């Protein structure tokens, strides 16, 4: 509720606050509805896409909790580094709260330094207004400390919610893994405290099975995607992945199974958006989060196809299953730490050769012809890696364009000019 924050300290809503709340809600709904409409206007939607779009509509347009989350203890997480398996083991449901919301950004903008990234500003905006159920109703917020902005937002969120800052190592050797295992034990303790239920061998194994089902369906989907280029619009796949942020893993997995079955039944040819002529682009760099999907939308509206998504809201978080070698409780905890740290292509790691491998692999797997390097203003860690990525792609003969953007629509024309020219460049090369 407005007024519970540090601004007033009063419990009742004043007229000013009420009017602010209704304006905030109206503006937020309008923007989100517009982007959902643009997603639908791309056309050629598989029928099984509906539940994913409905989830985004429920959260951002109706501003309500999806049915599958009602009555559940919600744990907010801010990154793929926080293992969801542990949250399920504690009988709770994780939701990913990294935000791409322009309206929330404009509120949070005033509370963070100018050069802070828009993602944390949008998170701060939602938390400050207290108008967004999915943020308001979280029993705990687990914030992996992957950059300076995340570190400071963890501190700021603590004014209104219970927060657990998850210390992420800067390296990936055995010592770093041991350190992360300890951190996950601390996380487990906090989760037990918040939910009041014990994390046992059985509940952790069940949590891992639940996430495993989602990972299995995703791997099935990715196999289709690799085998049949242009299977679906990249923006539609993005919506599928974003919906996973607001659904329990088993619910998402069953919607995903229906999508996979539909794609399988469709067979070659029919209803595929990508003609051969569409340049096949990959997006990498700073997170692309609904409704800030202007770059992927522009790519596909301007004649390209988003063939691969290397950002952390894409397949990164779910494509590597935890591999349990030792079936003890500690063995499972180690498996989770290994999975979170070793294959992760997040620039939080000092040495991120992992990302270079991943990008090279994805360029080959998805027959990528050009790369869009997305940089959110203030997102230094991703911007740092641009030069290396440009160099590596240059060696492969793949053109790359760095697009800097922020959470507003003022730069759309400039993004458009660049993307149009970039898409043309690839068409003329082909």
């Amino acid at each position, binding site marked *: 509720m407005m007024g519970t924050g540090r601004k007033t300290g009063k419990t009742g809503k004043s007229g000013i606050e009420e009017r602010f709340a209704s304006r905030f809600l109206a503006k937020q709904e309008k923007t989100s509805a517009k982007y959902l409409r643009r997603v639908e206007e791309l056309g050629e939607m598989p029928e099984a896409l509906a539940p994913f779009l409905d989830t985004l509509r429920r959260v951002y347009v109706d501003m309500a909790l999806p049915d599958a989350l009602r009555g559940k203890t919600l744990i907010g997480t801010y990154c793929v580094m926080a293992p969801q398996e542990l949250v399920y083991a504690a009988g709770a449901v994780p939701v990913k709260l990294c935000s791409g919301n322009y309206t929330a950004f404009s509120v949070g903008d005033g509370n963070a330094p100018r050069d802070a990234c828009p993602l944390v500003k949008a998170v701060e905006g939602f938390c400050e207004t207290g108008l967004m159920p999915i943020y308001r109703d979280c029993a705990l917020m687990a914030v992996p400390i992957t950059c300076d902005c995340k570190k400071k937002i963890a501190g700021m969120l603590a004014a209104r919610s219970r927060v657990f800052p998850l210390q992420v190592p800067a390296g990936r050797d055995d010592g770093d893994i041991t350190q992360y295992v300890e951190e996950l034990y601390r996380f487990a303790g906090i989760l037990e405290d918040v939910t009041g239920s014990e994390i046992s061998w059985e509940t952790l194994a069940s949590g891992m099975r639940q996430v495993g089902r989602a990972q299995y369906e995703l791997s099935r989907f990715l196999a289709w995607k690799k085998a049949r280029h242009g299977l679906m619009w990249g923006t539609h796949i993005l919506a599928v992945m974003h919906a996973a942020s607001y659904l329990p893993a088993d619910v998402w997995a069953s919607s995903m199974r229906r999508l996979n079955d539909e794609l399988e039944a469709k067979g070659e040819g029919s209803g595929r958006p990508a003609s051969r002529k569409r340049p096949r682009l990959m997006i990498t760099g700073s997170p692309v989060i609904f409704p800030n999907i202007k770059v992927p939308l522009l790519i596909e509206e301007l004649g390209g196809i988003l063939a691969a998504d290397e950002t952390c809201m894409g397949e990164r978080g779910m494509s590597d299953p935890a591999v349990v070698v030792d079936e003890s409780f500690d063995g499972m905890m180690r498996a989770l730490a290994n999975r979170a740290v070793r294959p992760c292509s997040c620039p939080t790691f000092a040495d991120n050769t992992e990302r270079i491998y991943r990008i090279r692999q994805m360029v080959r797997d998805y027959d990528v012809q050009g790369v869009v390097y997305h940089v959110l203003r203030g997102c230094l860690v991703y911007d740092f890696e641009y030069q290396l990525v440009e160099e590596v792609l*240059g060696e492969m003969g793949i053109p*790359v*364009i760095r697009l800097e953007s922020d959470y507003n629509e003022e730069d759309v024309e400039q993004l458009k*000019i660049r993307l*149009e*020219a970039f898409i*043309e*460049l690839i068409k003329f*090369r082909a």
Partner: protein
Amino acid sequence: MKYYIGLDGGSTYLKAALIRGNEVVETEVRSTGIDNNGTAQKMVEGFCQRHGFSARDIGCIFATGYSRKVLDVADDDISEITAHAYGVRLTAPKGYRPGMIIDIGGQDSKIIYLDRDYAVKNFSMNDKCAAGTGKFMEVIAQILETTIDQVGPLSLESKSPCDINSTCVVFAQSEVISLVARRYDRRDILCGMHQSMAKRIVKMMKKNEKEGDILMTGGGALNIGLHAAFEEELMRDVYVAGWPQFNGAIGAALIASGRGDRHRVQAGLGL
């Protein structure tokens, strides 16, 4: 042999180029005004009248530039990056090895990297602020009571160029005004302005793109003072394109000629 026309609807001027058999026949520039398409249509009609051919002799018309989508007189359109890259095939001086194009337009500046076969490898653009563009030069020329065509020659007479540090056109303008108030020679101010523009644009360049030669295009290439500032800043030879202002239009015309003698839809062209 058919005629091909390229139209470049820029922020400040509308440029048209008429080519035939890979030769530039005529170029024309007019203020963009508010009726882009009407102006473009008049320019096409003018070409026909002056060279004694009819609409049927036009193979194809391509549009480029900011207003390319509203130029209905054109058969198709192409982005300015591609158009400029094509234009240099006809406008680059003899001996130019394809490498980098610096385009100084009315309200943006861009750098385009070409491979050996003139294909676009990459590009960077500045279109978020007017600093380092033709508009910026116009504003400064006005303050210094001169005209845009005199800015270059005057600056070459400078003995000790002023330092201009502001990176924004509005602040640079106030900086220039204060230099005028302190009675600095306008030739030194202009020379300083060119150096600061060149520095700003050179910062946009990618450090690992060093192959080939550098070519200046766009209205800004007509400014010999700016050209000198680029050579000084880059410490390399900088070539100037023939018909620099028309490079985009010529490129669009060349792309039109590559499109071949498609049957043209003559809608809107009252001939």
